[in-house]
C-alpha cells in the first residue's frame, strides 16, 4: 500500500523535476528570442528549440497524466509550428502569449507539486489568447522571383526551408551557393563540421545532391545559404578543398552586398530517396525507433524538420545527474563536523600513546592513519560543499522574465544585460536571493528607468539598460543591479525621509551623501507617494536589506542624479561551512567569518586617535573606526590585560571597522550552528561552532556588528575606555 504510494510520488517528482527543467530552458530561449525580435533578427534555431521543448513537455505530460499541462503544450505547439513555418509572424504580442505559456506551466506544475494531482486551473482565457495570435496571420509572402533560383530547387524545399528562404530574402540577406564534394564515407562528420563553421556567418537553408560528375565514393552537394558576409570571407571559411562559394545572382540586376558574378545554377533534380541518404540532419529512421517520442499519434507531419541540427526528442533526459534534497546535504555536513571531532579525539589519544616509549611505533602508525583520515575528510567536506553550489543563472533567469513583464506593464523599454550568471553560490543563498533581487529590479524599473519620451528629452537612448552583474571576489560573491535611469536626488530623498519620520530635519548636517542614500533602507521609507502595483507590493527596501543581512551579506547603494542607480549586494559564497578567524577577547574565544575579514594587524596604541568620542586609526590613508569587542560585549576581563592587542579589520562593501581583540588563534574551518530559540533575540552572533576539544565558540555576525558600530550604538561604551 505505502509502497505503491511512494512509487507514485517518485514518478510524480520525476515528472515535475523534468518538466521544471524544460520550462526553465523555455524561459531562457524565449528571452533570447525576445531580444532577437527587438533587434529584428530572431534566431530561427531558437524557435525550433522552443518548439522541441514544448513538444517534449506535451509528451511527458501525456504519459504521466497531467492533461492540463499537455493541453497547454499542445496549443502552444501548434502556434510554434506556425511560427516556425512563417504562417504566423513573431511579434511582441506572440511573445507575450509564449511567456504567458511559461507562467501557466509554472503555475500548473506548482499546483501539481502542492496538490499531488493536477488541479483544475481555468485556462480558457489563455486558449483564446493563443487562438487570437495564431489567427493574427503571417507575414506577406515575399516573392522569390528576384533571385535566379532554379524552379527545380524551389520545388523540393520543405515548407520550413521555403519559409527560411523567404525570410532571408525579405530581410535582404544575400543568397549563396556552395558546391562541395564530400566522400560518402565521411559525409556525416564533414557536414557537421561545415554547419559548425557556417553557423556564426550564415544560415544554411538546404542541401541538395548535385548531378555533377560523381563517382561511387563521393557526392557533390549543393548547399544553399544566406549570409551577410562577403563572398571572400565565406570562401575563406567554407571554401577550400575543391569547394566553391558563389553568390546566387539576382534577376533584377540589383547588386547584392557583394557584387554578384554571373553564374548558372546547377540543376538539382528532385530525388527524394537520395536526399534522405545524403542529408543526415534529417534523422535517419533507425535511431527513432530506439528512442521513440512519447506520443506518436498527433505529431505534426513535418516533425523531422523540428529536429534539424538538434538532439533527438526523448522521453527521458539522458543526463548523469541526481536531484538531492538540500536537507540531506545539511545532514551530511553535520556528520562531517562530527567526524572532525572524532579525528581530533584520535589525535589526542595518539599523543598519549606516543608518551609511552614501548608504543612509539604504534603511535606513529596511528598518527599516519589519522593524517590520511584527515585528508579524506577534507575532500569529503569540499565535495559536499561543491555539490551545494549552483550557478546564479537559476535566479537570474527568473528575473529576466520579471524585467520583461514589468517593463511591458509600465510601457518602458528596457534592455537587460546580464554578466556572470555562471557565478556559483550556495543553493540556500540562491533561494533566499530571489525575492530581494526581484524587488530591487521592480524598484529599478518602476522608480529608476524613465519612460522612453522622458529619456529622449534627457538626451538618453529611449531604451533603458538594466545591468545585472555577478562576480566572485575572494570569498564573496558580488551582485550589482545597475540602471541608467533617473538616479536619486539627495535633497528629495532627505525631504521624504524627514516627512516619513525616518530622520529629523536637523540631522542633515551630520550626514554624508552615502548615509542619505542609505536612508532608503530604513523601515517606513518609500519615495513615491502613490503606491504602485509593482514596488508597492510585498516588501520595502528595509526588508530587502534585512533579508540580505540574514544571509551574512550587505547591500549598498550608489546613485547619480540623472545618470542612474547602482545597488551592490555582497554575499558570502556559502553558509554551510566557512573559514573563520579564531580570536580571543577577555579570555573568551570568538570566531569571525573570514569572509568579512580584510586583514589583522598589531594594534599600536599610540596611533589611536579619538574623533567625536570614537576611537579611530589611520590605515593606509583612510580612517578606520575602532571598536573594542570586550566593551561591545561588556565582557569582564578574566586575566591580566595583554601587553599586545590586535585589530581585525572587517570590511563589507564600502564599510570598514576595526575590531580590537586580545589575541589571534589562527584560522579554522567551522560549521555554523544556529543558537537555540531562547537566544534568538540576542543580536550580534551568527551562531556557534564546535572547535573540537569540547570547546564551543560563538561566531560573530560581522555585518550586524559593523552596522551597530557605524550606527553609533557602541560610542557610549568605547568612549569610557582609555587606551
Amino acid at each position, binding site marked *: 500500500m505505502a509502497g505503491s504510494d511512494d512509487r507514485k510520488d517518485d514518478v510524480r517528482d520525476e515528472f515535475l523535476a523534468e518538466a521544471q527543467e524544460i520550462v526553465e530552458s523555455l524561459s531562457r530561449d524565449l528571452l533570447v528570442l525576445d531580444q532577437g525580435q527587438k533587434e529584428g533578427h530572431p534566431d530561427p534555431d531558437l524557435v525550433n528549440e522552443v518548439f522541441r521543448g514544448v513538444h517534449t513537455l506535451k509528451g511527458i505530460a501525456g504519459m504521466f497524466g497531467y492533461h492540463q499541462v499537455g493541453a497547454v503544450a499542445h496549443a502552444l505547439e501548434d502556434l510554434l509550428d506556425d511560427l516556425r513555418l512563417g504562417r504566423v509572424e513573431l511579434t511582441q504580442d506572440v511573445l507575450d502569449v509564449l511567456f504567458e505559456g511559461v507562467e501557466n506551466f509554472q503555475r500548473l506544475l506548482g499546483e501539481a507539486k502542492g496538490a499531488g494531482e493536477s488541479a483544475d486551473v481555468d485556462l480558457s482565457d489563455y486558449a483564446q489568447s493563443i487562438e487570437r495570435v495564431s489567427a493574427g496571420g503571417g507575414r506577406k509572402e515575399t516573392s522569390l522571383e528576384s533571385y535566379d533560383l532554379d524552379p527545380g530547387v524551389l520545388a523540393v524545399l520543405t515548407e520550413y526551408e521555403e519559409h527560411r528562404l523567404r525570410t532571408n530574402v525579405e530581410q535582404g540577406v544575400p543568397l549563396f551557393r556552395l558546391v562541395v564534394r564530400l566522400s560518402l564515407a565521411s559525409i556525416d562528420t564533414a557536414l557537421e563540421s561545415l554547419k559548425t563553421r557556417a553557423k556564426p556567418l550564415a544560415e544554411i537553408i538546404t542541401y541538395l545532391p548535385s548531378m555533377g560528375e560523381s563517382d561511387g565514393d563521393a557526392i557533390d552537394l549543393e548547399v544553399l545559404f544566406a549570409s551577410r558576409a562577403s563572398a571572400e570571407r565565406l570562401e575563406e571559411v567554407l571554401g577550400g578543398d575543391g569547394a566553391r562559394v558563389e553568390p546566387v545572382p539576382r534577376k533584377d540586376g540589383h547588386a547584392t552586398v557583394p557584387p554578384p558574378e554571373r553564374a548558372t545554377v546547377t540543376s538539382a533534380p528532385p530525388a527524394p530517396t537520395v536526399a534522405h541518404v545524403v542529408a543526415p540532419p534529417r534523422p535517419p529512421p533507425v535511431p527513432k525507433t530506439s528512442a521513440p517520442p512519447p506520443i506518436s499519434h498527433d505529431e505534426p507531419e513535418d516533425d523531422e524538420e523540428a529536429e534539424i541540427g538538434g538532439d533527438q526528442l526523448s522521453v527521458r533526459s539522458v543526463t548523469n545527474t541526481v536531484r538531492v534534497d538540500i536537507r540531506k546535504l545539511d545532514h551530511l555536513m553535520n556528520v562531517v563536523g562530527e567526524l572532525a571531532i572524532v579525528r581530533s579525539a584520535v589525535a589526542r589519544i595518539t599523543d598519549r600513546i606516543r608518551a609511552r616509549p614501548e608504543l612509539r611505533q604504534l603511535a606513529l602508525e596511528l598518527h599516519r592513519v589519522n593524517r590520511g583520515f584527515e585528508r579524506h575528510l577534507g575532500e569529503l567536506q569540499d565535495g559536499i560543499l561543491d555539490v551545494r553550489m549552483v550557478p546564479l543563472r537559476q535566479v537570474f533567469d527568473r528575473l529576466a522574465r520579471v524585467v520583461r513583464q514589468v517593463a511591458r506593464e509600465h510601457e518602458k523599454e528596457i534592455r537587460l544585460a546580464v554578466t556572470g550568471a555562471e557565478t556559483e553560490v550556495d543553493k540556500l543563498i540562491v533561494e533566499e536571493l530571489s525575492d530581494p533581487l526581484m524587488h530591487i529590479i521592480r524598484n529599478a524599473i518602476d522608480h529608476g528607468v524613465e519612460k522612453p519620451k522622458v529619456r529622449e528629452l534627457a538626451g538618453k537612448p529611449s531604451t533603458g539598460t538594466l545591468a545585472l552583474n555577478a562576480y566572485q571576489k575572494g570569498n564573496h560573491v558580488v551582485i550589482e543591479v545597475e540602471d541608467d535611469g533617473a538616479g536619486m536626488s539627495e535633497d528629495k530623498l532627505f525631504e521624504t525621509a524627514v516627512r516619513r519620520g525616518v530622520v529629523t530635519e536637523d540631522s542633515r548636517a551630520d550626514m554624508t551623501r552615502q548615509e542619505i542614500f542609505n536612508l532608503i533602507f530604513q523601515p517606513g521609507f518609500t519615495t513615491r507617494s502613490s503606491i504602485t502595483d509593482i514596488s508597492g507590493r510585498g516588501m520595502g527596501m528595509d526588508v530587502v536589506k534585512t533579508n540580505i543581512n540574514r544571509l551574512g551579506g550587505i547591500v549598498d547603494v550608489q546613485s547619480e542624479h540623472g545618470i542612474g542607480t547602482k545597488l551592490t549586494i555582497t554575499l558570502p559564497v556559502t553558509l554551510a561551512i566557512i573559514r573563520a578567524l579564531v580570536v580571543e577577547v577577555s579570555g573568551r574565544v570568538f570566531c569571525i567569518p573570514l569572509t568579512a575579514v580584510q586583514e589583522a594587524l598589531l594594534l599600536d596604541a599610540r596611533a589611536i586617535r579619538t574623533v567625536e568620542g570614537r576611537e579611530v586609526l589611520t590605515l593606509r590613508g583612510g580612517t578606520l573606526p575602532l571598536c573594542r569587542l570586550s566593551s561591545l*560585549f561588556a565582557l569582564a576581563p578574566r586575566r591580566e590585560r595583554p601587553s599586545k592587542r590586535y585589530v581585525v579589520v572587517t570590511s563589507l562593501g564600502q564599510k570598514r571597522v576595526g575590531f580590537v581583540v586580545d589575541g589571534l588563534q589562527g584560522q579554522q574551518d567551522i560549521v555554523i550552528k544556529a543558537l537555540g530559540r531562547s*537566544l534568538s533575540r*540576542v543580536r*550580534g552572533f551568527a551562531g556557534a561552532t564546535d572547535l573540537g576539544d*569540547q570547546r*564551543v565558540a560563538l561566531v560573530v555576525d560581522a555585518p550586524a556588528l559593523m552596522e551597530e558600530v557605524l550606527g553609533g550604538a557602541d560610542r557610549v561604551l568605547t568612549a569610557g575606555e582609555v587606551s
Partner: protein
Amino acid sequence: MSDEIVRAKTVLPAAVAHQVGSAEPEIVYEVLAFVIAQERYALPLASVREILKVPSITEVPRAPRDVLGIISVRGRIITVVDLRRRLRMAEAAIDKGARVLLVDDGRELLGLLVDRVLSVYRLRQDEVELAAVMGGDTADYVTGIGRPKASKGTRDAEARTQEEMLILLDPGPLLRR
C-alpha cells in the same frame, strides 16, 4: 564520553500521567527530583532527556541574565539556563554534584543547571497536592507539591528515612520566557 546518561523512559503516557481524577491510587506522576539551593524540586520525567555532568559552558554576551551560556551536545548547540537565577535564588559556585538536565519545554531542548540530582519518584494521586488546591500566589511554573510517603514507590535511601516535600515544576512556563 563518560557523561552520565539517564534516558527517560516514560512508563505512563503523558495524558494518563495527568489524569487527576483517577479512582485507584495509582502512580500519576513520574518525576525526576533534584536540589537547588537546598530546596527539592522535580520535573516530569518525560520532559527530561538526559542528565549530563557539567561540561564547559561558553558564555553568551548580551544573553538574558539567567542564561549561563551554550554547550554542544553531539553537535547540537544547547542553551543552558541557571535555575538558581531563574528562580531568583542566591548564586553559588558550581560544585562536583552539579548536573545539567536536558529538558524539552515543548519548543526547544534546553539545559538546566541544578545543584544535585536526587532520583526518580513515582507519585500516587494521594501524594500530590495540586497548586490549584493550594491557591494563593503560587508561581505559574509550579504544578503542585509532592509528598512521597516512605514506601515502595521510592528507592533512594535518603528519601526513605525522612518525610520530604518536592516542588513539582512545569517545564513549559518555567522555561519559556
